[in-house]
């Protein structure tokens, strides 16, 4: 029962702080509005606010070049951003590597000059511009300016690093606690050890088999905790949407794909290119389908995790946004309650998506090392 209470408390705190940051971020969109030609067309207050919320949600889903905690408008009507600037690292064929802190951009307001070239931060992307920071658009309202290769330490990179360090400390301590305490874990390890055993006994062994599961355990355990922890940090008011970023899920899915491909045995390949127990003309038709299937599997992994996290964030933040749209006690408190319930659901989804990703990875690995398959 205490566990349930704790979950409620955590969800409540997450949501309260999310609302607070939303209230502050509302003003961010005021600022971005000046860059938006489209927002100028909006006149009515309600529509304007809707657009603001939409912008805010979009902004939140994107990676960011600085770790902003909150911002406010000071007495002079100036925007003040409170946060940590992050290093920007750009690679360019002509200039080589250039690095500076993201604070130099002043959140897109200022054009930075490096080696005679002008750089501007626009919608969290860095473009080459002229000295005035002019952005050219094509007919679909996409920027046509050239971009340098951006290897900046972004907010997502920072969160990935922090999560990795946290994971290392956590599981290193668990590993060390066995020797100290006579084979019984201490502290947080008591909570995580059953999860590790669950992944071994319920995910790895049934899907991969007793014989081969050991070589995949490191990947499965790492990917499970990595995705889970990042999903959970995505729910904190820091609003670091790492697993809801297509780049991150693509990298994770590619790992599963490569591990499956490089550890696959003869049986796996024969089932792709020359399906046994099927008439020969059919085998020729099946080969490209099966080959495509090997790519679709990790692709579905990528999209599933990305879509679930993005959908969760969008719905949750939109409902929190409703609190500000309604502006009456009944509607606002109703959306507050709804957001609260959804927060709890999102905690569950965070775990569920990590489980599904690990489970399906194990399933694909299992098909790669399966030895004696019965006739289909």
């Amino acid at each position, binding site marked *: 029962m205490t566990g349930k209470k704790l979950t409620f408390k955590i969800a409540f705190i997450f949501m309260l702080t999310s609302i607070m940051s939303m209230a502050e971020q509302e003003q961010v969109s005021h600022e971005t509005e000046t860059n938006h030609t489209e927002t100028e067309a909006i006149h009515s207050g309600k529509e304007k606010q809707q657009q603001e919320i939409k912008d805010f949600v979009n902004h939140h889903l994107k990676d960011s070049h600085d770790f902003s905690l909150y911002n406010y408008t000071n007495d002079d009507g100036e925007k003040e951003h409170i946060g940590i600037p992050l290093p920007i690292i750009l690679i360019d064929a002509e200039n080589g590597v250039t690095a500076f802190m993201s604070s130099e951009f002043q959140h897109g307001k200022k054009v930075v000059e490096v080696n005679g070239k002008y750089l501007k931060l626009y919608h969290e992307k860095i473009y080459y511009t002229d000295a005035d920071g002019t952005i050219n658009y094509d007919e679909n309202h996409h920027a046509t300016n050239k971009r340098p290769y951006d290897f900046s330490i972004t907010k997502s*990179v920072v969160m990935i690093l922090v999560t990795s360090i946290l994971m290392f400390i956590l599981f290193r301590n668990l590993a060390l606690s066995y020797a100290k305490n006579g*084979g019984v874990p201490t502290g947080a390890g008591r909570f995580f050890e059953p999860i590790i055993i669950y992944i071994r006994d319920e995910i790895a062994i049934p899907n991969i088999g007793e014989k081969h599961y050991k070589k995949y355990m490191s990947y499965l355990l790492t990917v499970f905790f990595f995705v889970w922890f990042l999903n959970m940090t995505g729910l904190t008011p820091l609003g670091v949407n790492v697993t809801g970023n297509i780049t991150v899920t*693509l990298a994770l899915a590619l790992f599963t794909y490569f591990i499956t491909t490089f550890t696959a045995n003869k049986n796996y390949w024969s089932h792709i290119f020359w399906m046994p127990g099927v008439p020969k003309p059919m085998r020729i038709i099946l080969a490209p389908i099966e080959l495509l299937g090997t790519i679709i599997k990790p692709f579905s992994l990528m999209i599933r995790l990305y879509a679930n996290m993005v959908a969760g964030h969008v719905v949750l933040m939109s409902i929190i946004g409703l609190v500000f749209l309604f502006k009456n006690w009944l509607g606002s408190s109703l959306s507050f309650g709804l957001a609260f319930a959804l927060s709890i659901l999102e905690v569950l989804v965070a775990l569920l998506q990590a489980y599904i990703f690990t489970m399906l990875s194990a399933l694909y690995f299992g098909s790669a090392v399966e030895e004696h398959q019965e006739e289909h």
Partner: protein
Amino acid sequence: MEKLFADFSLGLFVFQSAIFVGLILLLKKYAWIPILDAVNEREEGIKSSLESADKAKEEILQLQLDNKKILKEARIERDSMMKEAREMKDKIINEARNEAQDEASKLKEIAKADIKHETMAAMTDLKNQIADLSIDIAEKILRSELKDKESHNALIDELISEGEDKFTQKQN
């Protein structure tokens, strides 16, 4: 789909992949292998202790059975020993009794023979004495007969009483 491509960032991809590979390798060496080994070891330990506990239980059961058997055997042995002892006792008593009886009868025989012998000796002695006495008397009678008839009679009487006394004396 276009949005997905627009969202893709090469920098983040490279960082994510590099950090993730590093994380897997580090965790594998410093966490997962020690943890899984420790868990495995503990599970094996539990398994083997359970097995040995079962074994010990069986052993105890076997021991109990053995104890019962031994007890039973001991009881049987005790019974047989007691029976034997009882038999031995009876036998010894019987033997002793027989022997005693034999001895007693033997002694009786000897005593009887002794008595017979003594009686015979006494009788012989008595016979000899009586013979001596008779000879004496006869001698004396013969002597006195030569003098007179009266003195002759008196002498016979005297001798008889004398002989009687002597006899009784001897008998006593």
